[in-house]
């Protein structure tokens, strides 16, 4: 799994589960020497869409995000999550730094959370499509 894939998963994982897990890793001493590089800040990111007619970009609006940067034992970590949850953003940044330092196999608990998040996302997708595909208008072949 690439670092970007891990961050994607951390960005979508359950906020409470993530924060609780990181707290317990800190309590156990697995993660230590955390420094705040960029305190969590809630703001907007500009959303550009490329439309298909003229292949032109335009700005559809902004999205609300929270961003944070930390270092864990000197390794930098970063996170951006949708919404305004500062704790979750910091927890994700700590996770990013820690995984960047020790690798995903070095923290099985985090690896588990990440794969569970992936699984849940896929399940939601499947459930959604199973429902929607029933609304496809089915035409008989016109031979």
């Amino acid at each position, binding site marked *: 799994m690439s670092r970007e894939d891990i961050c994607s998963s951390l960005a979508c994982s359950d906020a409470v589960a993530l924060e609780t897990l990181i*707290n317990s890793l*800190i309590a156990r001493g697995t993660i*230590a020497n*955390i*420094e*705040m590089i960029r305190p*969590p*800040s809630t703001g907007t990111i500009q959303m550009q869409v490329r439309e298909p007619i003229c292949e032109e970009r335009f700005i559809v609006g902004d999205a609300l995000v929270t961003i944070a940067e930390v270092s864990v034992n000197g390794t930098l970590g970063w996170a951006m999550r949708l919404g305004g949850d*500062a704790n979750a953003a910091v927890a994700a940044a700590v996770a990013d730094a820690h995984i960047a330092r020790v690798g995903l196999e070095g923290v099985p608990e985090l690896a588990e959370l990440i794969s569970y998040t992936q699984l849940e996302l896929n399940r939601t997708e499947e459930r959604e499509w199973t429902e929607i595909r029933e609304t496809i208008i089915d035409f008989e072949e016109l031979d």
Partner: protein
Amino acid sequence: MTLEATVNSSPTTIAELVGHRTTETFALRDEESKREIRRALLQAVCIPGYQVPFGSREMPVARGWGSGGLQVTLACVGADDAVKVIDQGDDEGVNAVNLRRLVTMSTGIDETTEVDEATLIQSRHRIPEDDMNENHILILQVPVPEPLRGIERDIRELARMHSEADYSRMWVSLYEDKVRNGVITQSTGYPCLVASRYIVATTPIPRWDIPRLHQSKFLTLFGAGREKRVYAIPPYTDVEPLTFEDVPFEVESADGATCRLCGSSESFLVEMPGKQESWSCSDTAWCRRQRNT
């Protein structure tokens, strides 16, 4: 930082690490958007009367309710300022009260009703009767910044007319008004030529206030939030109401009426309908001082 110190000061939870989030805010807006208005204002003072576009943001008050004036005030205000806010000349008008509390609440600066004590004066529809000087900035709220809109609606044509100072149609319209009605019927927001170059909309302030903009000692900044424009009249700048040689510019007359509270006939008076002795000063702080001295 030594390793030991890091370990000792290490937080034990994410919540502790995040701590109490303190982002310093002053005057409601983020720094970026204040700088943007400041850049527009610096162009505005250098091109007297020219409408400078800026990226107006949403304020906690509706567009059309002084959001432009408020953005200008918040871009200018510093910790040492004292602000006076009036609406129709009245410090206690509901809109004045509302805007003033937004400014003071978000900055902690002093508020005052006295022109002498104020450095920033935000106003809708009036210029205070008191003399102002180089230490004052007057900030006027502008609902419609385009003085030519009555004669032209097309934005591109309006831009051309201003860029070429082609104001002939404005003169024709004033002339027709005079011929048809015997007087120029424009009541407030009387069009004026600034520094012999741009015609501006004078917010709407009454004609009574227009002569006070000419060669004034103070800087006037105009903010139109909904239409996303700012413009300025620097101190000691010519402001000439458009009129004809044989038609002198007339301010509002009240036919010798006096204020029922202070007895003055030297201020702009407003009327209560259907009553005897029904006039009073629109500038309430000025009126109060007349009574007390």
